[in-house]
């Protein structure tokens, strides 16, 4: 086993052992459940099928918001990055709405969409739309002028072609970064939205539910699941992006 990986494993195991010992010493499951308790709870939620259902609903909320965010933010970001007029028209509106935390939208979301999956999706959407938009915008705006000119002398003349052949490929790494940041924010929004009872399942909902039952081992179990799911999504995304789309970025090509 390589040295680095061994160290990681030791660090991980060490943390668990310390946790277990600390919890035993404290001996108050409301204050800090033991690791072994959490593992047992984890098994029971997996066995009962609850976890699958929760995971499914949370991913649905996440997916609705992220999908909508991508569909809306990327074209707007592209327009703003490409055309100064569009920038001048849209930018003030964006800057007005952007600082409002997504969670502050929950009352209106509930008024508009009632207690449905779409409400959660909407909150996620508010969370993801700005990071994607801003990064798309930055990527487009950064497109080196010389690349545009070099494409123009090679016969790429319409705005549509220049965007498709030059600005978009150039901005792709930046857009991907935006989506990645957005996924982090979006996942937070899933939990926040589900606390308001938009559904009777969901990873975030369950945290609140177990808290009301004073089952802190359940709370902790779902917290860890949230972290794991988020990590997994991020890793999958990175793999796809790094290997399929961005192999031209310095250092990525030859190191594999």
């Amino acid at each position: 086993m390589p040295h680095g990986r061994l160290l990681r494993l030791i660090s991980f195991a060490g943390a668990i052992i310390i946790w277990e010992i600390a919890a035993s010493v404290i001996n108050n499951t409301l204050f800090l459940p033991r690791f072994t308790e959490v593992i047992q709870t984890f098994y029971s939620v997996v066995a009962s099928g609850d976890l699958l259902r929760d995971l499914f609903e949370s991913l649905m909320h996440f997916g609705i918001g992220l999908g909508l965010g991508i569909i809306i933010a990327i074209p707007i970001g592209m327009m703003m990055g490409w055309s100064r007029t569009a920038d001048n028209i849209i930018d003030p509106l964006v800057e007005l709405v952007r600082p409002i935390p997504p969670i502050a939208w929950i009352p209106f979301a509930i008024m508009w969409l009632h207690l449905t999956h779409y409400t959660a999706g909407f909150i996620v959407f508010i969370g993801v739309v700005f990071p994607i938009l801003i990064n798309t915008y930055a990527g487009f705006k950064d497109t080196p002028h010389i690349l545009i000119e070099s494409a123009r002398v090679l016969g790429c003349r319409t705005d549509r072609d220049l965007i498709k052949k030059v600005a978009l490929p150039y901005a792709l790494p930046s857009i991907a970064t935006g989506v990645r940041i957005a996924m982090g924010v979006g996942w937070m929004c899933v939990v926040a939205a589900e606390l308001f009872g938009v559904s009777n399942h969901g990873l975030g909902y369950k945290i609140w539910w177990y808290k009301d039952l004073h089952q802190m081992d359940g709370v902790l179990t779902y917290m860890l699941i949230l972290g794991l799911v988020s990590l997994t999504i991020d890793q999958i995304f990175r793999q796809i992006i790094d290997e399929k789309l961005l192999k031209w970025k310095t250092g990525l090509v030859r190191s594999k």
Partner: protein
Amino acid sequence: MLQINNLNKKYDELLVLEDINLEIADSEFICLLGPSGCGKTTLLRIVAGLEQATTGSITLNNQTVTSTNTCIGMVFQEYALFPWRNILDNAIFGLEMKGVDKETARTKTRKYLRPLGLEQFEKSYPHELSGGMKQRVAILRALLIKPEVLLMDEPFGALDAQTRNQLQTELLKIWNKDKKTVLFVTHSVDEAVYLADRVIIFSNRPGKIRKMIEINLPRPRDRTSMEVNKIRNKVLKALGAEQETHDQNKTNTNQ
């Protein structure tokens, strides 16, 4: 024939090119030489259609050039390769824009990679290549759309001396084969004298054509021969006079 007629270029109130008149025969190799900031790059950009002249016109075979078009190719000092495309796909960009199917364009282009020593690099990305190789790709990319005029804006300016000499020789080989009209901007007198049929020397801003020097020496030229030296001195002298007035102007404005 490429004609530049009574061309003036102003940026706001700043006159950068004044009354440029130039007639360039087909397959003539022209080098534009002059102090920095004299507007030679601007002239090239106007010919390319990337900028508009304030007054005057450019005509290519009696057709007025108003915007970029595939009769005129350009090579930039910064290579301007697309970093997300590998070497082969960079080279085919112009063909792709002409509507040639990607695979056909690739097959067609591959055979040009070998004489340029780029054969093993077709799948490499620009950042993995040396400056000389990048510029070879950029030249190939510009030539593949079969322009009538090739504009080169200090294409070898960022290269080391040895690579530079090598690329000059390669460029002449290519030029010899398909005899394009070349407009080549450079800072280097040696380069101009080695390459050009005619060296055009610009004055300080506002850039005017100060002097034209024809070079009727056979190619490949011996960089160290007497004749080349003689012409080099002639060019240096013309340029030196320009440099002096430049410095004088500077001291005058400083006082």
